[in-house]
């Protein structure tokens, strides 16, 4: 469970996140909002790339903001990026093993854990291929394997379906739904694809201009009038 209290981020005169208080309980949670709503900035706060002006983030009882950035991955925070970041020069296996090596996981279990993650995403036949020789789709799935290997506690997925054709998006949705049970991690999914969010997330939070405007069961949130207005860009009287 992640509890966010009064989180504010300022870049000069811009406030990409403004007094955000929200909790992500369990399973797969959606985080949506129009462009520039502060979703990626929120992920960057969790990753330690952005220092918030105020606020606290507690994840499974751990004060996340106190941990050094690289230690958060060791603690169990995993993430993917909007532009996939699988390393082209390394093989699929090495890409995933890299994460395992820098986690607290048992090194004797490395091969088994990496192979488990690769078979989970369906890339086990490609473990010796250099990532540079793969297309966009498989690279996205390498990132998912990287996100689930080595006892993850929290998995942040930043538009994981970007650039994927429909049938691969469906495969991806199945994987995302399976992560909490199979790996015991809390998943937060940011995506513009509402069908992916509704297919994967029991609960969803909505950000608009850095403010939380709705949170709750996904179906209810998507029918919330503030959310519809935020997406349609209508004048909001709030």
């Amino acid at each position, binding site marked *: 469970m992640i509890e966010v209290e009064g989180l504010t981020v300022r870049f000069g005169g811009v406030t990409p996140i403004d007094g955000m208080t929200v909790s992500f309980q369990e399973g797969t949670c959606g985080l949506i909002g129009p462009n520039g709503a502060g979703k990626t900035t929120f992920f960057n706060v969790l*990753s*330690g*790339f952005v220092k918030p002006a105020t606020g606290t983030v507690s994840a499974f009882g751990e004060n996340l903001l106190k941990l050094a*950035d*690289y*230690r*958060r*991955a*060791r603690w169990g*925070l*995993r*993430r993917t*990026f909007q532009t996939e*970041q699988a*390393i*082209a*020069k*390394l093989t699929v*296996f*090495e890409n995933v*093993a*890299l*994460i395992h*090596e*820098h*986690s607290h996981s048992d090194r004797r279990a490395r091969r088994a854990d990496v*192979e488990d993650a690769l*078979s989970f*995403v*369906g*890339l*086990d*036949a*490609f*473990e*010796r291929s250099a990532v540079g020789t793969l*297309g966009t*789709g*498989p690279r996205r*799935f390498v990132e998912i394997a*990287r996100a689930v290997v080595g006892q993850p506690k929290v998995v942040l997925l930043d538009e994981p379906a970007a650039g994927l054709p429909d*049938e*691969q998006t469906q*495969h991806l949705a199945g994987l995302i739904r399976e992560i909490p049970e199979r790996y015991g991690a809390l998943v937060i999914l940011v995506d513009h694809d509402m069908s992916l969010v509704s297919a994967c997330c029991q609960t969803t939070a909505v950000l608009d201009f850095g403010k939380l405007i709705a949170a709750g069961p996904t179906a209810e949130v998507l029918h919330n009038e503030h959310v519809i207005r935020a997406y349609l860009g209508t004048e909001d009287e709030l």
Partner: protein
Amino acid sequence: MPARGVRRGVDSGAARARSVSPETVVRAILIGGALAFVLFALPVLLSTYWIKVLTAVAIFAVVALGLNVLFGRAGLVSLGQIALLAVGGWIAARFLFLTSLPFPVVLLLAGLLTAAVGTLLGLPALRLSGLHLALITLMFAGVVAIVVPTTNFPNGGSGVLGHTESSLGSLAIRRPSIAHSDEAYFRYTVIVAALMFLLALAHVSAKAGRAWSAIRHSEPAALAAGVNITLYKLYAFTLASFMTGVAGGLYAGNVGKLYSYQFSGARTIDSVSLMAVVLMGGIFSLWGAVVAAVLQQLLPALLNDWFAFFRENPDFLFVIFGVGLLQVLVTAPEGLVTQFPRDMRNLGRLIIKPFRRRSGAAKGPP
């Protein structure tokens, strides 16, 4: 999911990953054969002069290897590698005159102490990269170029610096007891260089190499993967400097006498040209370091031998390096180590083509 479609034999895939592939065996045999040729045939075939040139090639292959790892793997630029070579040479020379420690121990000490200096040089890399880091490391080379003429190199004198001006009777830097002759020292150098390549291989194919790849690819992504960027950047400098320090010790033994003019301010250009040849050789394969050393040490010796023009204008080498670097950067960023075999294959195909067409026509139906 495309991967599902071609998913076959999960178990055989896992088994393949664990066993040694036939290519690896063939490659190991080829490398072993080449090494045996270099160690046993070359000293018999070549004159002492060329053996000394090839000893220098082996030494600079180690220096180039350090930069190859630093830049090719971790993405960190350094234009101060020749200055670190001078530091390694100084340390080795000092210990060789001061103590009767065995040569390999002195090489190790030179490597470790140079690694300490190089790690300090790496500190700016935690904040800087690219051009700024290049300039800072070049300035370090400049500092060494100022210090070296003042301290000079040990030549059997007393005191901390170990240098005496009454150099008429000064001793040559000693070589290992098993490798006094130039031929034996050549073999010794090649073996130490091979060990350095194994050391580099052990790093780039392991956790450190993967961490460096992650850093080179994207620092935020490396942090998100749990890579301690500070530690691994410094470690890249430590490893590269260790190798360069060992090379410095080998260099001291090879030349017998180190002179400050070899590392004077005017020679800081060597650190820059090293970067050029390392890029030309290829930074994504360790073999690129061998090509780099051949370009920097053997090529000028051959040109000197062949052309009087080159003997009178040794700096013409930079024109060749400039054109060569431009050629590589534009047409083959992976370097000569990949480009040359590929071009040779293409040339072979081009030569064979007309013959094949003729035989194909002969076989064709009437």
